[in-house]
């Protein structure tokens, strides 16, 4: 092998040379320490903690107790109302997580202590071996006329009564409140699952409105602003919505039982539930601030859309006793267990009775005091 004689080279620091080695150096950076891993390992023990094993709630919260809360709208309410300072003794870390799938996932990762959901996720969490308890419950007054959901009907589907659903394609999401609602309204119309075509589709974002508009399904439950948007966009094509005439209003806080078994955490959660009750009252009493601070500023909605949501919610109802709500929850469980072929549960077991009066009492007294 022979090489040509080397070329006389320019000065040792020729620009191309330094630039190239500088870039080469980029490649040769020694590996830095990887991001430190946090978070422990999660073990999903399906061993249920019995209600009797839980100690009575402590009167005060031990200093330095931290809770991770998945309740995004209340975070804003606490900031707007100044109620945040009532939680001085507790370190509250808010996570922007709510709804069944996300909260149960975070519970399993030990990344969350309390989540905000409707009535179906606690049932499904229990069925999947996660031991959870409801610690606060809010409802709507005159719930039948202030539904969270309406049944969206695709343009030209010709569904004007629930009975018309026979033989039609209905969007269905088994683990979500929307899915349970579909089963409940079929039940109300005297229809079986076999009488309609259930199309499994998780309700995320605007999936249902889009599926209706493109005639993928004939009917699907739409919630909140989606109702208004759907009609605004597609009414011209013949889109309609249908009131189902059922109660679909539960709004719950729930926590993993193992968190509630820790006395310090339980006391901190009780303090949070108290403030949650007051915040609900504040939202009701200050619609203008709520519209501006939450719907417009935080959620990026137009004033008109925000007002629509406030009107749709109507008045809140935070009971100091859960008996009636537990009965309604039991009916939902019975229906789901039957229709989804799941084991039977006792609704009362899903509630942590120690918390029963806290939110309702706080809500009522905040109203009397004329919340600041």
């Amino acid at each position: 092998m022979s090489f040509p004689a080397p070329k006389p080279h320019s000065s040792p620091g020729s620009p191309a040379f330094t630039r190239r080695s500088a870039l080469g150096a980029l490649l040769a950076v020694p590996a830095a320490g990887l991001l430190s891993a946090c978070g422990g390992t999660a073990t999903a023990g399906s061993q249920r903690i019995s209600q009797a094993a839980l100690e009575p709630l402590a009167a005060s919260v031990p200093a330095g107790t931290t809770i991770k809360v998945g309740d995004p709208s209340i975070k804003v309410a606490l900031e707007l109302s100044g109620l945040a300072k009532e939680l001085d003794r507790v370190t509250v870390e808010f996570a922007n997580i709510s709804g069944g799938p996300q909260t149960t996932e975070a519970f399993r990762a030990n990344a969350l202590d309390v989540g905000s959901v409707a009535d179906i996720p606690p049932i499904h969490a229990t069925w999947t071996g996660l031991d959870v308890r409801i610690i606060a419950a809010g409802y709507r007054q005159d719930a039948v006329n202030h539904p969270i959901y309406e049944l969206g009907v695709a343009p030209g589907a010709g569904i004007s009564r629930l009975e018309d659903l026979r033989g039609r394609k209905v969007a269905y999401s088994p683990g979500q409140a929307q899915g349970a609602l579909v089963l409940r309204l079929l039940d109300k119309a005297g229809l079986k699952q076999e009488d309609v075509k259930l199309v499994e589709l998780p309700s995320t974002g605007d999936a249902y409105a889009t599926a209706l508009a493109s005639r993928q399904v004939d009917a699907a439950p739409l919630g909140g602003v989606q109702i208004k948007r759907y009609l605004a966009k597609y009414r011209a094509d013949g889109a309609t919505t249908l009131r189902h005439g059922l109660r679909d209003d539960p709004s719950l806080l729930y926590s993993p039982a193992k968190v509630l078994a820790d006395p310090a955490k339980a006391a901190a959660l009780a303090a949070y539930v108290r403030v949650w009750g007051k915040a609900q009252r504040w939202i009701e009493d200050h619609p203008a601030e709520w519209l501006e601070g939450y719907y417009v500023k935080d959620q990026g909605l137009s004033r008109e859309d925000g007002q629509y949501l406030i009107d749709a919610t109507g008045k809140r109802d935070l009971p100091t006793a859960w008996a009636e709500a537990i009965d309604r929850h039991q009916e939902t469980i019975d229906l789901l267990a039957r229709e989804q072929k799941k084991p039977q549960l006792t609704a009362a077991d899903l509630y942590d009775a120690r918390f029963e009066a806290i939110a309702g009492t706080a809500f009522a007294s905040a109203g009397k005091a004329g919340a600041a």
Partner: protein
Amino acid sequence: MSAVLDRPVLAPHQDPALAGAADVRPTGKRLGPGRRRQLAWVGPSALLLLWTASSATGLLDPRILSEPWTVVATAGELIADGRLQENLAISAQRAGLGLFFGILVGAVLALLSGLSRVGEALIDGPVQIKRAIPGLALIPLLILWFGIDETMKVLTITMGVFVPVYLQTHAGLRGIDLRFVELSQTVGLSRAGFIRKVVLPGALPGFFLGLRFAVTGAWVSLVVVEQINATSGIGYMMELARTYGQTNIIVLGLAVYGILGLLSDGIVRLIERKALSWQRTLAG
């Protein structure tokens, strides 16, 4: 000794001594794409024009894809209340961190695996396995291991970014012509010198290709991670708009992603052109 591996002799068109001389080289049929021109904007502009035209003529239903002027108006509103800038800043921070760690990990692994057989045996297989697993599918596990905080977000982006960097750098490194290795041995280069003067420059073209995949990949991963416990970022903004059916904000988010991708790719290509000025290829 290093003199041997220095810059090649100047090409005629770069030689200042020949600058004034007439070009008397024989011309034949040209097979390459021709001289480099500043035409990068033509394709994207054509796309924009098509979108505008089909919206204006009503071919495109605004309920399916918002009109360009609606998107511009939406951008104006969001910039006015500062939402767009805030979200963009936090997204850029996440993408930047993920990109930094991803490039580092990818490059280091590629060198380890490219320069030693032991390294290859240990590293290459697992990386190929990681390649086969969709990033989205890893999210539940990453949440279990790292919780729902920023760590998990940056790590998800890192996981997505390091693979192309590793692959392309590794391929570039292994593609170095054996002649250069023999030359280095002949002139008695030390191992460190060989890595610095042959391996790294030789792997750079591959590294830059990997980098182009990585920068756009980092932006794309954002949508996924910002759907989990985020209260900020472009992905969060789009997800929130989905919840409320605000198509115009979703399309704006897509446009922002497109612009970011195009810009960051352009920047990488510019650096690449400067760094690889010694390369004489079809790219010109």
